[in-house]
């Protein structure tokens, strides 16, 4: 699944570590999500949505 987390994170001037801290996950998890290697759970997707003030659909795009 593609996502815009790296761009949105840059807009908010957050490092991966800082974003991980806000979401209460490891930096490795943020890195894996940004690279599209790992799809987050729905609760984590909602946390991202709330943090970036975007809908989940705006953040994540399905690659079908």
């Amino acid at each position: 699944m593609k996502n815009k987390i790296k761009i949105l994170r840059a807009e908010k001037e957050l490092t991966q570590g800082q974003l991980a801290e806000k979401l209460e996950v490891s930096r490795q998890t943020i890195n894996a999500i940004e690279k599209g290697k790992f799809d987050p759970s729905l609760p984590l997707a909602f946390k991202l949505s709330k943090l970036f003030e975007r809908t989940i659909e705006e953040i994540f795009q399905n690659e079908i």
Partner: protein
Amino acid sequence: MKKTKENCVSNTRKTTLNLSYWSGAWVLTMALVAFGPKFLWEENATLTIIAILVNLGFGIGLIFANKKHLNSLDELQRKIQLEAMALTLGVAVIFGLTYSNLDVTNLIGYDAEISHLVILIGVTYLAGSVIGTLRYR
């Protein structure tokens, strides 16, 4: 109270440390059961039973410590552990039974030992965890 990343990280560190203490205690008491009867208490049955029960107690503690540790991980770390466990279960069942068949049919010249299976399980789980960590890096 709201959890912070620092709390999450320190909680994972704490449960990892806790898991290592339980693992160490279990391994030590296992050694006691294996070598104690011969070298420490001259095959005294009562002391051997006590040592076995103590080892079992630490083993049960280890199971709960491992569960607590898994619950302290975030979702990606849990996925890595789950994949390593799935690989380990498959390898243990398939290779364990093949090894047993080789023993039963006398195709190997020695008895199949449970310790060989435990070593295989440990090595597979370790390899699975390392591969998973590298894959999601």
